[in-house]
């Protein structure tokens, strides 16, 4: 049973077709990454998944009672809006004051000390952690991330993806994310979908990385990214952690 199922999804903006006949489903506990050049319809796909875009044709089927956690690409907090981290965390429906849920969520994200700070005063990394903590506070079955590491440096985004994998391991929630940091993301993904107005190719990270469609899209840059990715990937496996361990845990759970 999949958590979310996009069936023959076609999206149009004005007269332009941004996505054509996309089929995509995410099963529990799975990490699926969408890659693709700018304007390939990645964000539109995610917006359709949360119901912010109405498909021109096809449909989006969600599992009954599905809870979604969403981390936007960027969140602009208008300077006229006073908002503490604590208040922001409680903006999710069903999260009450004084239950300790906010404190626990912030603590597990490593930002417990920020509870009373203003959102506008946070650094990029802190902001990202708070956004993720808020997405997780409702115990989602599915986590949607839209280029969530934009504005973070390489170490910061590596730490972010490690945290995602840890979250999946601890809570068993599935993850559907968009990323442009191919080499970092591939080592944590179960499945990669290469998007360019339609699904060019999909499969395990290894399959996609060697697919001719993918190489055609990402051109000369691919070699470097691929080398870096291979290096990263080997390194992870030497350590015996990350991808392999999580995958085993999931198989055991099934």
């Amino acid at each position, binding site marked *: 049973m999949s958590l979310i199922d996009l069936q023959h999804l076609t999206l149009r903006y004005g007269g332009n077709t941004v996505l054509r006949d996309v089929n995509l489903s995410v099963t529990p506990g799975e990490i699926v990454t969408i890659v693709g050049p700018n304007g390939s319809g990645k964000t539109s796909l995610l917006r359709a998944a949360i119901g912010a875009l109405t498909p021109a044709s096809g449909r989006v089927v969600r599992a009954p009672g599905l809870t979604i956690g969403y981390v936007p690409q960027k969140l*602009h907090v*208008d300077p006229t*809006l006073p908002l503490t981290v604590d208040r922001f965390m409680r*903006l999710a*429906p069903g999260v009450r004051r004084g239950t300790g849920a906010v404190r626990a969520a912030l603590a597990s994200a490593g930002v417990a000390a920020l509870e009373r700070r203003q959102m506008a005063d946070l650094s990029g990394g802190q902001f990202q952690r708070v956004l993720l903590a808020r997405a997780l506070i409702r115990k989602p079955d599915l986590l949607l991330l839209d280029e969530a590491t934009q504005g973070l440096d390489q170490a910061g985004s590596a730490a972010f993806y490690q945290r995602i994998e840890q979250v999946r391991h601890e809570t068993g929630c599935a993850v559907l994310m968009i990323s442009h940091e191919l080499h970092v993301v591939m080592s944590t993904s179960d499945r990669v979908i290469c998007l360019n107005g339609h699904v060019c190719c999909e499969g395990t990270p290894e399959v996609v990385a060697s697919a001719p469609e993918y190489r055609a899209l990402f051109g000369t840059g691919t070699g470097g990214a691929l080398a870096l990715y291979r290096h990263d990937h080997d390194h992870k496996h030497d350590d015996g952690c990350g991808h392999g361990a999580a995958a085993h845990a999931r198989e055991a759970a099934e």
Partner: protein
Amino acid sequence: MLDDFMVRATLAGVGVACAAAPLGCFVVWRRMAYFGDATAHAAMLGVALSLALQTSVFVGTVAVALAMAVTVTVLSGRGYGMDTLLGVLAHSALAAGLVAVSFLSGVRLDLMAYLFGDLLAVGRLDLAVIWGGAALVVVLLAWRWSALLLSTLNEELARASDIDPRREEMFLTVALAITVAVAIKVVGVLLIAAMLIVPAAAARGLSRTPEVMAILAGAIGSFSTVAGLRAAYVFDTPAGPSIVCVAAACFLAVTLATGVGRRGARRG
């Protein structure tokens, strides 16, 4: 107690201030200041229509304000910038309202009363309408508060929490139309937007959460009403503009105080 016109005027002003405070916060947060202005200006057309059709001014202004809000929503994103669109609609509606009023033969209309308010002439029935409308707005906004806040912050975050931002926007539009209709008598068509924006803007510098900002805006608005009315009485100035002047003075005071404080903190 209600026999005293000053008491009635004060109660009417405080009622409007209480409704305008939370709504004004959303107007500020969502950058809808011009939208509020356009809706308020359109109310002039509502006044003319209700006089022509001999219906209550409240009903006429609510209807036209709603029609204006819907028109703006439908036309937005069709090639014109939002500020251009609102500029065209706001002033056209005001002008059309003024022209329409001049066609009404046999009606002796005190135009100034609608443009700048006629707070000192508030009767018992007016007071009931103002407090009824204001209570409706406060209840509506309190009910939708969290969903509205989340929709204001980010549309996708709201969607992911199963909140429909467009539906929430509709609640705001209705609240705005009601507020405009009840505020006409107090500050008049031209200054309604000031009652929405100025207290909320003054409260911003003193607030750490959205709720505190809304409550402080209500306090500042109410204080401005009482002090403004007093000033109007003492100096024999028009009541509505006097209230707005006090609110503006509050804004200036807060801005200077917090601005100086912040600069000191940065240096330290």
